[in-house]
């Protein structure tokens, strides 16, 4: 199947290095301590953060740092075919773990010992790149909740199809079976916190693809920063400062 | 049977009433010694002699909507069995054999230790024992369950529900399963044009020839009965209650059929070893019990008719 046309356009009309439109909104769940909606094209996720708060299960208490937990779930209607999925299938357990580890790496957990932070991500629509979208949404929600973090993690995926590196794969491109690199970085510190890849890819091309993903992450980081600043301004305005 | 003592009277009623509380406390605190004191007198706390089984009753046809059913009570242990016949396509290896699926359930109502959501430890074990015993005894000829060779055969779902668990679960379960099998009435069926089996109704019985004209009841080649005994020191206690089972842990279950064959001698561990003499004693008691159960089953079948 041809994923990049001779004119250099992808199936949805993007150029190889073009990202889908991203949109973020802070405060979608008013009862949560922090929440955000993040959209990448047709992929839409909601993240809500509760905490830091008292531990639910005393036995899990860590005396030196906060316990970070994450649950990923997909709405029944999120995929093209309606499917009835129970919570906690293998795929969602794995993604929960990935998100948890990525977020834990940037939260200053040692500042909040003996407490717990819950991150809940709910996928409303899945069209490729749910992992990245979830991480971006979780970052925003954590910032909204005011959890101290060393940097804003952002994530983006990139792939390699028809000998072209492609940024931000959608579902069709993702399911083509080609390599799919999901990357999470701390943009200010310039560090990689998450790198996942399936299928195989020559090592020299991996560098190109990764570079592309890093660019994508940075672009998202820029956008997220803007959204946060705008949100803070709004709050200050409402305070009448 | 020198060991079978004559039935003794109830524990002395003239015992000092003021010590009644103490007896109860003694029973709870030192259950084993409490029992041993009784055993020394050749009597059990519920007034039975060691070798006497509890009162047993069988009621056939307890579930109206099932093809065969039976309600069995041994003491307060209650079992309800129902058989529902469904049609299946037989497997290629045995095109003219039907199938029996036996399952034993312990719903939460039967005992305080069963909680909803997780099955009791005993239920898969009894379930396996039941299906092993019934299938290995060759009591039922699976060929009788065939309808149209290679096309359709009966699948008999036999479900045993324990309604009240008070010891000797396997005995009661087997008895109720056997009673339900003896009560089983196979409906007259015919095959329609689509190759599906349909029930013949009385009004249009003439239209089609039933495919199972003769096979309306299972012939049970032999009938199985079982007896559980507790071995404790040199004593043999027949048909234990759940309290006795929990205190004395060596249980022996013997299954005999009406022709006197030994179908199962089941002794899962236990601290008391079974020697030849004890084995022979147990078999002899079981033989008596088989006769007893056989007449109870026959009587209940007569009552139904």
């Amino acid at each position, binding site marked *: 199947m041809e994923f990049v046309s001779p004119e250099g356009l992808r199936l949805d009309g993007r150029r190889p290095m073009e990202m889908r439109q991203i949109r973020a909104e802070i405060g979608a769940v008013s009862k949560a301590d922090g929440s955000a909606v993040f959209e990448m094209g047709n992929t839409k996720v909601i993240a809500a953060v509760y905490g830091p708060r008292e531990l639910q299960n005393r036995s899990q208490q860590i005396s030196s740092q906060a316990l970070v937990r994450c649950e990923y779930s997909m709405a029944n209607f999120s995929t093209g075919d309606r499917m009835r999925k129970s919570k906690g299938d293998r795929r969602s357990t794995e993604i929960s773990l990935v998100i948890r580890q990525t977020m834990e790496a940037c939260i200053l957990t040692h500042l909040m010992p003996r407490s717990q932070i819950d991150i809940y991500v709910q996928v409303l629509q899945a069209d490729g790149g749910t992992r990245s979208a979830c991480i971006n949404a979780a970052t925003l929600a954590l910032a909204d909740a005011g959890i101290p973090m060393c940097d804003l993690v952002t994530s983006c995926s990139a792939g390699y199809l028809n000998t072209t590196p492609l940024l931000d794969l959608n579902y069709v491109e993702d399911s083509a079976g080609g390599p799919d690199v999901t990357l999470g970085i701390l943009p200010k510190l310039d560090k990689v916190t998450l790198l996942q890849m399936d299928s195989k890819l020559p090592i020299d091309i991996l560098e190109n693809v990764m570079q592309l993903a890093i660019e994508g992450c940075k672009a998202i980081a820029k956008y997220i920063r803007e959204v946060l600043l705008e949100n803070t301004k709004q709050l200050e305005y409402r305070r009448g400062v | 049977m020198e060991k079978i003592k004559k039935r003794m009277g109830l524990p002395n009623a003239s015992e000092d009433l003021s010590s009644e509380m103490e007896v109860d406390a003694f029973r709870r605190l030192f259950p084993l010694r409490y029992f041993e004191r009784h055993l020394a007198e050749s009597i059990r706390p519920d007034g039975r002699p060691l070798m006497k089984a509890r009162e047993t009753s069988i009621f056939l046809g307890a*579930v*109206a*909507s*099932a093809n065969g*059913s039976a309600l069995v009570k041994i003491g*307060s242990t*209650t079992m*309800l069995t*129902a058989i*529902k*016949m*469904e*049609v*299946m*396509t037989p*497997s290629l290896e*045995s095109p003219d*054999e*039907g*199938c*029996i*699926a*036996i*399952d034993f*359930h312990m*719903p*939460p*109502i*039967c005992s*305080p230790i069963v*909680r*909803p*959501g997780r099955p009791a430890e005993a239920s898969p074990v009894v379930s396996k024992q039941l*299906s*092993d015993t*019934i*299938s290995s005894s060759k009591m039922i000829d*699976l060929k009788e369950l065939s309808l149209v060779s290679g096309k359709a055969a009966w*699948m008999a*779902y036999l*479900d045993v*529900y324990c*309604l*009240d*668990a*008070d010891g000797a679960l396997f005995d009661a379960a087997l008895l109720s399963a056997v009673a339900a099998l003896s009560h089983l009435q196979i*409906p007259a*069926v*015919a095959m*329609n044009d689509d190759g*599906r*089996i*349909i*029930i*013949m*109704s009385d*009004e*249009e019985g003439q239209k*089609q020839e039933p495919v199972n004209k003769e096979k309306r009841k299972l012939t049970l080649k032999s009938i199985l009965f079982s007896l559980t005994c507790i071995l404790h020191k040199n004593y043999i206690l027949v048909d234990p209650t*759940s309290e006795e089972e929990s205190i004395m842990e060596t249980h022996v279950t013997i299954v005999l059929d009406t022709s006197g064959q030994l179908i199962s001698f089941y002794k899962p561990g236990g601290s008391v070893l079974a020697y030849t003499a004890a084995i022979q004693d147990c078999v002899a008691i079981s033989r008596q019990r088989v006769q007893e159960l056989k007449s109870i089953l026959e009587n209940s079948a007569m009552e139904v008719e």
Partner: protein
Amino acid sequence: MAGKGGTTPATYSPSPATAKKKPPHLKEDWLRPDGRGFHQCRPAFFRTGAVNAASGSAYAEFGNTKVIVSVFGPRESKKAMLYNDTGRLNCNVSLTTFATPVRGQGLDHKEYTAMLHKALEGAIIVESFPKTTVDVFALVLESSGSDLPVIISCASLALADAGIMMYDLVASVSVSCLSKNLVIDPILEEENCQDGSLMIACMPSRYEITQLTVTGEWSTPKINEGMQLCLDACAKLAKIMRLCLKEAASDSQE
């Protein structure tokens, strides 16, 4: 599984050859399949103390609907809970595999479980057993219409048998709406072609409704009529239940 090992083949239960008839109630002068009047309940049979292993139990039989309920407790709560000065009521309803016309899986019935809990919680004095749990487990031996009302009535009797403090017995009755007629205590055949149903669980002596569900389209006067019908039947049912308890008590005294 006995017989041949391996995968269990798909089975079906053979259906009668006769074609489906039109629901009978569409005719002008239909009678109920079991010959009862529209406002006549099935004869109710109750017995307490059906299960020796339980703290309290009851067996109920309404026609072919047969239910056993066991009550355990008050006993230690299974879940580690925060301190609570009231008790907890835990319910569970399950069906035998042969209860329904089509062989089921014998699973827990979540809907009935939730409804039973709601119907009973208002009647039990939970303050009388702080920090502990009372378990009410029901098993439907045979299902033949109006299952839930039978379970609820039977459960309240089992609770009384177990000596759990209650404000009043809970009696429950349902009515089905079949075109223009209201039919009380419907059997399975009637339930399968009903246009609507109304179920009430109430404490007759206190004249309070603890649970009420309505399905289907009802006009206000019809709801009034249906509720009145149920409430009257509940009062009668409670009398039978009381009688059963009295008999059990006098038996035990003897």
